[in-house]
């Protein structure tokens, strides 16, 4: 066990975690050069395409160090996006050390700090690494100084690497061996193993990713899940190298997996402790708090008859993504669907894309909402996550919305534009700090509803891409909120309603109607659109009936091509949702999100 090192790689998004993992796998011979592909641990199609890590992954490597000894290195790659922060905290609990990667062209950013603090809270040894030194705009000296300042390690002791080109990567391996302490477990004590992640395999059932704290697991042991008090015989135990490889036993300090054969992830929860049924421990290990969904939206099948398929698809997605929650919901306009909870907007987009691509579903996603607390005149408190559920204003004493602590790091020259952006979105400034020369860290409090959409894009565009942000929940606070309602073709469309600040209702209602008029295509008949709030009509518009939609020419030579055009047009139409007799495109349901001035 003296020769085991368990570590994870943490960083701000895109600083090169997965790329460094590639090099480590290659240099240790875990993956042959021939089998190497970029960001090999990002195995989901969507991860590969977007170039981001969504799900943490673990892998075991063997490394012969300069001291002549062979070490077992267990690496966990983590996602950098703030929506998936909880994946990072889980990975941390399985490790003794963390590689903190900083991009030499970007310097310290918001998630660099956020993830660093998480790692320090978990008592991990931090090994800083400066990456991307091959780029002409790299400033490794400055970044080294900033890190020295932040961590108290000498600037010249920090490895400066290019994960892409492989430069100085062996320094990282040596630093891991020399700086990260070996695990402290005892293989002779009763078994305690922490489940830090899981995925679903159609043959082996739920595969739990585990870190053994004490004791050992043999492949024929009978195991107990402490939260559910259920016993199981593992289908298989093994390690990731980097694909699943069965082994006969796993010992204290090891990172590996147990194929449980269980059919639902809820039977085998991430954060739970596994022990031996014959010789159990008494108290489970401290787990994690389950990630709480922050953003909610309705997902509806475009065709009503696909409801069951959608349900099945969500069930399957949840097998691999326990942070996705959903429950059936009925909408007047969209009929039967599901109210889903997500960690953030990025998470929501990923779920939507996976439904469309992996499950071939045509879905309508309604505008995301946060969760509100509604205090009724009776004193009763309702928790709602959909504008539809907001009761009649006359019965409400107060509506409270979630507020966040927002952390922005930006070059000082963008101080003004950042301040302006945040205050325009009802944010309140609280404090500032200077983590590095020419960099300011601004801390605000802001309603979550104001940052879930577009905020980050705006921040990026105002700071030419230099600012980064992080946020965390502080609590609920009362606000003056009202429901903005929409009628299309004379029928109320509940899925287009949204909750807005009273002072903005008028303005947003007008913008919404204008937007909808642009987005709703002309139909066979005139379609009236109107918005109202607190019983008052704010704005109306009319989408005039379509008069001309015909291919002027179609002769012998054109048939195949014209048929394709028609099929394409038909598919576009099919993706729209019939509400009453009006066809509404998916984008219209998102229109409520972008009501800022252009």
């Amino acid at each position, binding site marked *: 066990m003296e020769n085991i090192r368990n570590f994870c790689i943490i960083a701000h998004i895109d600083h090169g975690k997965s790329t460094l993992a590639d090099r480590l796998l290659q240099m240790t011979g875990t993956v042959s050069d021939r089998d190497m592909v970029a960001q090999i641990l990002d195995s989901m199609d969507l991860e590969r395409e977007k170039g981001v890590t969504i799900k943490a992954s673990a892998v075991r490597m063997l490394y012969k160090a300069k001291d002549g000894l062979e070490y077992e290195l267990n690496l966990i790659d983590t996602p950098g996006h703030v929506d998936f922060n909880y994946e990072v905290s889980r990975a941390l609990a399985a490790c003794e050390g963390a590689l903190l990667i900083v991009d030499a062209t970007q310097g310290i950013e918001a998630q660099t700090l956020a993830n660093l603090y998480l790692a320090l809270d978990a008592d991990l040894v931090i090994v800083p690494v400066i990456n991307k030194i091959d780029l002409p705009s790299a400033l490794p000296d400055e970044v080294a100084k900033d890190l020295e300042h932040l961590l108290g390690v000498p600037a010249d002791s920090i490895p400066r690497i290019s994960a892409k080109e492989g430069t100085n990567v062996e320094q990282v391996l040596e630093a891991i061996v020399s700086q990260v302490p070996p695990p402290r477990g005892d293989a002779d004590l009763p078994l305690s193993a922490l489940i830090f992640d899981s995925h679903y395999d159609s043959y082996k059932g739920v595969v739990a990713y585990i870190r053994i704290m004490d004791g050992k697991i043999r492949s024929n042991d009978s195991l107990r899940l402490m939260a559910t008090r259920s016993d199981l015989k593992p289908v298989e135990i093994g390690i990731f190298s980097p694909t699943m490889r069965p082994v006969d036993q796993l010992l204290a300090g090891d990172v590996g997996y147990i194929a449980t054969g269980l059919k639902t992830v809820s039977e085998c929860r991430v954060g739970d402790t596994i022990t031996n049924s014959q010789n159990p421990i008494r108290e489970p290990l401290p787990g994690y708090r389950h990630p709480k969904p922050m953003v909610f939206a309705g997902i509806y099948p475009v065709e009503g008859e696909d409801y069951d398929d959608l349900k099945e698809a969500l069930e399957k997605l949840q097998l691999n993504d326990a942070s996705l929650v959903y429950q059936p919901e009925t909408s007047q306009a969209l009929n039967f669907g599901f109210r889903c909870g997500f960690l953030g907007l990025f998470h929501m987009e990923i779920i939507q894309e996976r439904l469309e691509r992996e499950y071939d579903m045509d879905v309508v996603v309604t505008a995301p909402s946060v969760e509100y607390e509604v205090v009724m005149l009776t004193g009763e408190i309702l928790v709602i996550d959909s504008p539809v559920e907001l009761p009649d204003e006359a019965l409400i004493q107060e509506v409270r919305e979630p507020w966040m602590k927002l952390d922005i790091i930006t070059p000082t020259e963008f101080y003004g534009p950042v301040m302006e952006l945040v205050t325009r979105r009802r944010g309140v400034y609280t404090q500032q700090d200077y983590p590095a020369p020419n960099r300011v860290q601004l801390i605000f409090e802001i309603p979550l509803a104001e940052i879930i959409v577009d905020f980050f894009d705006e921040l990026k565009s105002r700071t030419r891409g230099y600012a980064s942000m992080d946020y965390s929940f502080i609590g609920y606070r009362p606000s003056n909120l009202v429901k903005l309602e929409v009628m299309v073709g004379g029928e109320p469309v509940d899925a287009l309603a949204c909750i807005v600040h009273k002072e903005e209702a008028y303005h947003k209602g007008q913008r919404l109607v204008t937007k909808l008029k642009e987005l709703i295509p002309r139909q*066979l008949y005139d379609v009236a659109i109107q918005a109202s709030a607190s019983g008052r009509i704010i704005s109306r518009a009319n989408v*005039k009936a*379509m*008069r*001309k*939609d*015909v*291919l*002027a*020419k*179609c*002769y*012998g*030579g054109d*048939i*195949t091509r*014209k*048929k394709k055009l*028609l*099929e394409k*047009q*038909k*598919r576009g*139409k099919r993706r729209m949702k019939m509400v009453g007799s009006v066809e509404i495109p998916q984008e219209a349901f998102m229109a409520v999100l972008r009501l800022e001035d252009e």
Partner: protein
Amino acid sequence: MEAFLPAYVDALCKEIVQVGGDGLPVHTIYFGGGTPSVLSLNQFQKILTTIQNVFQVLPGAEISAEANPGTVTLESLDGMRRIGINRLSIGMQSANPEELVFLGRIHDVYAIQKSVSQARSAGFDHLSLDLIFGLPGQTIRQWQNTVEYTISLQPEHVSFYGLTIEDETPLGKWLKRGLVEAPDPDAGADMYEWAAERLEKAGFRSYEISNWALLDPIRGWMQCRHNMQYWRLQPYFGLGAGAHGYLDGIRTVNASQIGAYIQKMQAGGPQTTPGSSATVELKAISRWEQAEEMMMMGLRMTHEGVDEGEFIDRFGISLEEAFPRQIQKLIQEGLLEWVPMDGRHLRLTRRGWLLGNRVFMEFVGCPPPALFHNHQGSIPVG
């Protein structure tokens, strides 16, 4: 271009011989695509003679040629008429000089008038004029002027097409870069409707979305029989570079580059029936696709629409068995109607003329009904 005309004509004749031969009866021949009027009289003659040798050209067959104003002379028209061409389709486009420039046409309005009168002197008694509307910046006034002028030339047939701008075309690119103004679809609808009424008043009848025929007291409605062959989904040979054919439920496509076409015909490589040595693509159309295409094409015919009896003969089920939901919905929306004619016909309503895509798309990409037998059948060649 002119330089390889002789070789091209040779190749074309070789192709005609390859695919013909059984004395198959034909009732229409169409010289189109590009500017066939660049052919010399001898070349026209050679092609026609070759056709007559290997096919049975029926008496009274319609033999059309496309001609652009300014590319023909009295002499050439006279020759064309003499060797048997009996219908001329003139690419007039517009009677507005600026529009002609915008469309990159080499002719002016005078050339149009001259071509028409020369065609008449040469003895053509079936003339069609092709127009285009919905140009960027075009006013209804300008269009009315073009239509009035067209009627004054007394053609037997008029086609008018709404301009469609496709992304890859130069116009599409200009539009993207904001160099031209996007045509307003409602203005296009106004133009179409105005022209429809005006032509009706002048004795024409719409028989297809973009095609109008005059009633001749002796010859009846002066429809283009060749084009009807396409819309009725009946068989035709496509001969020459880039031509498409449709025979026995198989669609053929020839090499589109003239050079490649000539080369393939000269080499005389293997020939896959019903194609020739120049055929680069052969695609069997399943019976269900044929049924769908019969709707998509047949419903373009604003007067006769789709003949239910014909559909049943071909596919063994009725229209309502094949497309129950679609037909019901479209009738309800006021886009389709049943008319008793010679049997039952399903066609677009007047309102549906300009909303054709809404109708056609309902009939493409549908799963066949359980009743349908999708085995490959053959269609009688007409």
